[in-house]
């Protein structure tokens, strides 16, 4: 095996691997990885009964990859906290991270491999399962085999790629409902990097077009940390949030501007117009076509299209020039339209005009191990997969970390498409909708029982690999770690290279031993490095400096094609908590009220009271939300934190499977989305579906009736949370 191949096997392959390497250690003590049953009469040195010990690992509850500490006592992991060693999340984790233990201890886990037997899945042994895999996958080759995963990174990602290579396939569908794929495309085109480092903390003012950076975003904890700095620095940062449904981040805005759904690009052009024509900011680097487009959108036209008052636009544009450096962000509600690319481009162009690139948008540098970098998902792959499956182009697919059957709109006809896939393998912890239709179910260990490495998508200033180590023994003997399953699969194809690793632990130890010395602080003692790494949980890897360009690409007129159609625009808003639905089986998160609407354990439709009045709907009515693709029936909650032209149905509920906590609760708005796509990137235009809403009956609402003139929404004259003007803060606490 040549060195290049070796590095690729070990996950260090790719452009950055020029770092100095190191020899494979001559002896590997595999014994160290063996799990032993230890009697508490003679506990291990580090296990003191009654005393909790904190171990480092990595959270995989979303794809942000925060480093965590898990408190282990008497062999059980009890509580997760952020790992302060990681500059990404600085010792913090979000509610989803906190609830990780519940997924681990869930009573609904798959405990045994299962194989399809007619309509049902029956338990089987690993030997049988692997034999079946050998047989089925052996018969497939090339692009008729595919992996279907969520965002995946680290050595697991490398092994998935390696397995695909071994199968001779290039089909890796990576699907995430909560994604920033369109922004990535724009960023790539305008700044040269898909995920440049966003520096909210450095900005004096942030204008966020629907970017819920502290909510369901790429790295909510990281951005929340930045936000805290942004707010507490000497000149308190100013946040303007422009969106159709108030997001968690919008709740914290100094100015929250409701905007007609799908017109964010127009508003951005209007601001550009003001900046260039009124405030006379230089238009250097703006292509002529774009310049022309900008000039078309004068303030009154923009105000009319977007529904945002002209003086507000002017004021924000004015402030953007006064508060420098600023930062303009675009979120999924900007992306999710047929003209999504154009809208995002228009928004991001403001950063160019305002000269933010390089100041608040930095290069995230060249991560030295591209093979480990996160393969980020979007919805384009879901569409591609549906198409390929429908065309019967897939004979075998392995599913992991994604639940396409749940999250694909009905319009994609994925159910039928799935039937046309020859052999479906689900590597899964739970019986979710996708797992239920699989032909072979492989129970995967929870992330708290498994080895792995994670590379966060959004890195902080110090790029790092986060190491995931088991915090306790496996709850179910018949579950296997993802890495172990991958190794088994690879061994079936390429036993020469992978046969020597008894398990994934052995593989990782080898991989760490093979890690370039520069990353290891030039230590040669691999055991020491390994131990230190496990202790710290984080390996700092210097990203070599990159530099962003600041250009503006040409983009089409971001005009909303359905702006004047009947009905309302459906906002399928993701929540920090249930996220895209993957956490619906965690009771803590079900019981945590939605941050804005305060609803628990259910779905709801969120509408502005004015809209509701027009439609004859009153608060808590049962309403039917219908699109061309179908309808869902649920309770309505009237909140003024909605634009009058939008109705939001949050993601996360409506599971038809997925265990006792998730099943049968609420509705899944993804089902009724149109299959419209972004013209440029082919991503699903998730925020553009038009719906009609009608009341179908009053809901049982006794428990929510409030007394008197006030309601739980109002402070009723008390001083519970008082709002003080920033001038007061400047006087008392400012510089």
């Amino acid at each position, binding site marked *: 095996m040549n060195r290049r191949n070796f590095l690729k096997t070990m996950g260090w392959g790719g452009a950055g691997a020029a770092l100095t390497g190191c020899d494979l250690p001559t002896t590997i003590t595999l014994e160290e990885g063996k799990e032993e049953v230890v009697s508490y009469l003679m506990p291990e040195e580090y296990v003191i009964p009654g005393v909790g010990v904190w171990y480092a690992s990595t959270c995989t509850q979303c794809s942000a990859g925060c480093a965590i500490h898990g408190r282990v006592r008497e062999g059980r992991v009890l509580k997760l906290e952020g790992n302060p060693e990681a500059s990404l999340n600085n010792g913090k984790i979000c509610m989803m991270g906190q609830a990780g233990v519940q997924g681990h201890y869930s009573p609904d886990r798959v405990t045994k491999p299962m194989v399809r037997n007619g309509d049902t899945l029956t338990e089987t042994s690993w030997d049988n399962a692997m034999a079946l895999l050998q047989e089925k996958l052996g018969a497939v080759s090339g692009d008729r085999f595919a992996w279907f995963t969520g965002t995946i990174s680290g050595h697991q990602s490398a092994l998935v790629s390696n397995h695909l290579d071994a199968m001779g396939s290039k089909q890796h569908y990576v699907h995430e409902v909560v994604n920033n794929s369109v922004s990535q495309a724009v960023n790539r085109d305008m700044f040269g990097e898909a995920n440049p480092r966003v520096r909210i903390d450095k900005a004096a003012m942030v204008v966020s077009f629907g970017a819920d950076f502290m909510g369901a975003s790429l790295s909510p904890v990281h951005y929340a940390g930045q936000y805290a700095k942004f707010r507490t620095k000497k000149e308190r940062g100013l946040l303007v949030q422009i969106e159709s449904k108030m997001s968690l981040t919008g709740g914290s805005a100094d100015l929250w501007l409701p905007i007609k759904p799908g017109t964010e690009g127009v508003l951005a052009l209007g601001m550009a117009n003001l900046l260039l024509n009124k405030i006379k900011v230089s238009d250097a680097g703006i292509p002529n076509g774009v310049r022309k487009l900008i000039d078309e959108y004068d303030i009154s036209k923009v105000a009319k299209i977007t529904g945002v008052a002209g003086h507000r636009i002017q004021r924000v544009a004015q402030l953007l020039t006064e508060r420098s450096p600023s930062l303009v962000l675009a979120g999924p509600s900007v992306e999710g339209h047929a003209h999504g690319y154009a809208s995002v481009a228009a928004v991001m162009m403001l950063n160019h005009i305002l000269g933010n690139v390089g100041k608040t948008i930095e290069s995230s540098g060249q991560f030295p191990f591209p093979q480990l970098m996160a393969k980020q998902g979007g919805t384009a792959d879901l569409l591609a997969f549906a198409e390929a499956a429908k065309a019967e182009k897939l004979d075998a697919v392995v599913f992991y970390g994604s639940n396409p059957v749940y999250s694909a709109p009905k319009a994609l006809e994925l159910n039928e498409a799935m039937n046309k896939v020859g052999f479906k393998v689900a590597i899964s912890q739970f019986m979710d909708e996708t797992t239920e239709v699989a032909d072979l179910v492989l129970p995967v260990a929870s992330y708290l029982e498994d080895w792995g490495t994670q590379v966060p998508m959004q890195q902080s200033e110090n790029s790092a690999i986060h190491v995931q180590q088991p915090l306790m023994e496996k709850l179910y003997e018949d579950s296997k770690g993802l890495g172990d399953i991958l190794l088994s699969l690879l061994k079936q194809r390429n036993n020469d290279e992978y046969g020597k690793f008894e398990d994934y632990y052995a593989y990782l130890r080898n991989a760490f031993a093979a890690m370039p010395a520069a990353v290891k602080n030039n230590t040669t003692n691999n055991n020491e490095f390994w131990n230190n790494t496990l202790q710290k949980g984080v390996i700092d890897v210097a990203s070599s400096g990159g530099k962003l360009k600041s250009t503006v690409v040409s983009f089409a007129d971001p005009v909303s094609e359905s702006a004047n159609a009947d009905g309302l625009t459906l906002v399928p808003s993701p929540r920090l908590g249930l996220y895209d639905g993957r956490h619906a089986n965690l009771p803590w998160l079900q019981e945590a009220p939605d941050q804005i609407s305060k609803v628990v354990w259910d779905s709801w439709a969120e509408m502005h009271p004015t809209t509701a009045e027009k439609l004859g709907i009153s608060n808590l009515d049962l309403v039917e939300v219908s699109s061309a693709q179908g309808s869902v029936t649920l309770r309505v909650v009237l909140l003024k934190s909605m634009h009058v032209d939008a109705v939001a149905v949050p993601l996360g509920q409506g599971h038809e499977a997925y265990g006792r906590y998730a099943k049968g609760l609420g509705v899944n708005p993804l089902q009724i989305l149109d299959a419209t796509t972004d013209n440029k990137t082919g991503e699903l235009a998730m925020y553009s579906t038009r719906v009609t809403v009608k009341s179908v009956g009053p809901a049982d609402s006794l428990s929510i009736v409030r007394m*008197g003139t006030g309601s739980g929404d109002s402070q009723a004259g008390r001083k*519970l949370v008082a709002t003080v003007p920033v001038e007061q803060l400047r006087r008392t606490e400012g510089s």
Partner: protein
Amino acid sequence: MVTEKDINEQIAWAKINTDVLESMENPRPAFWVTLAVCVAMVACAVLAEYIQYTEGMGTANLNNPHMWDMYIAAFVFWIGMSHSGTLLSAILHLIHADWRKPIYRFAEAMTTFSLLTAGLFPMIHLGRVWNLYWVLPYVSDRGHWPNFRSPLVWDAFAISTYLTASMLFLFVGMIPDLAICRDNTSGWRKKLYTVLSLGWVGSDRQWRHFRKIYLLMACFLIPLAVSVHSIVSADFAMSIMPGWHITSFPPYFVAGALYSGCAAIITLFILLRYFFRFEDYMTLAIMEKTCKLTFAIAMVWTYLNLIEFASIWYGHDMYNKELLIAKATGPYAPIFWTMIFCGSVLPFTLAFQKLRRHMPTMFVVSLFLNLGMFFERWMIVAPTLSMSQEPHQWDVMYGSIIEWAIVFGSFGWFGMLFLIFVKVFPSVSMYEVKEMVFHRKRSAGEEDLARMTDHSKPVTQTTGGEGA
């Protein structure tokens, strides 16, 4: 206008004995029907309580913020009901209003049994009732004491004192009658009365001491009764909650207690009069006096209500004022206005002689007066919890079927105990009716005698009490 007599003085003493003793043996069938209904209600409540006991207090729909609800309202209601019996008996005794004599016995029994009913509610409502005794001050080797600052501990002291004192008052007053029973019955009743009459023979020494203890007890009971309901009001008044922390609560509670007690006396008066054919003793004249008294107390209660509203209104305490407005206009408004109607408007029926003398009307009215008083207690307990300082926890709550079953059952429980009591013990004080007849006759003088005998002839041969 001829003043109607409270009682016919010509009634023979033997008839008094016979009538009352007869009542204990031979009530109308309606008595048994009522008793059966009461027992059935208790059975439902026992079932509900079993569910609540095994599953938890949540079955009563209690929640944060409604940690208390109808159980406490019912507790206050029953405590209040207990007031009239003893307090009226004691006050009327002190002021020598002898028309109390035919009715005080059952009124005092009502006191005792409504206390026994009230006493159930702290237990029913307690999350861990098996630890109830921790409220009592007993010496424990861990050095634990109850918290003497807590109005609930005051309750425990006050109610146990009141229960003791009112039961003793009832018992002491009944001793001469128990002796009569002893002398006129046989079998188990004889044994029971022999023990309970404590060897009463009616000697002058016994009567002298009896007179004294009765007076002393009455003197104790009046301040005690007032303090008990003040302390019950302290459960609320000592808190810092709007609608609870109100200075006028002690008198307000006492007035409300007397009010509901008087209304209950009217109800039971009519029932007993019918069950036991007591028309000769529980006369319309006495009924009228009771009704007038009830009316007076109703007006005191109304006044105190207005005082409370006014002091809240002009006090400008934000929390209190918004709560008052919410009571009158919010979701609980129907209950609030029913309370005002039943408590302040309906009593005006008592001002009309025609209505006062019409038993069915009075029966219904008295029930509605007490309905109003139950709502009053509930309007004190629940709305404050619904709408306290913290607006996030504002809520509206109505009790579950479990809670209703238990509250209804408490009426059954009270009725059951009361009906058993009046069946076993003389519900009209025989010796005192005799005294009443005796003294009235003496003071009426012989010259009136002829006129009076015209209008109601003695039913049987008079054998006694014909002093010259």
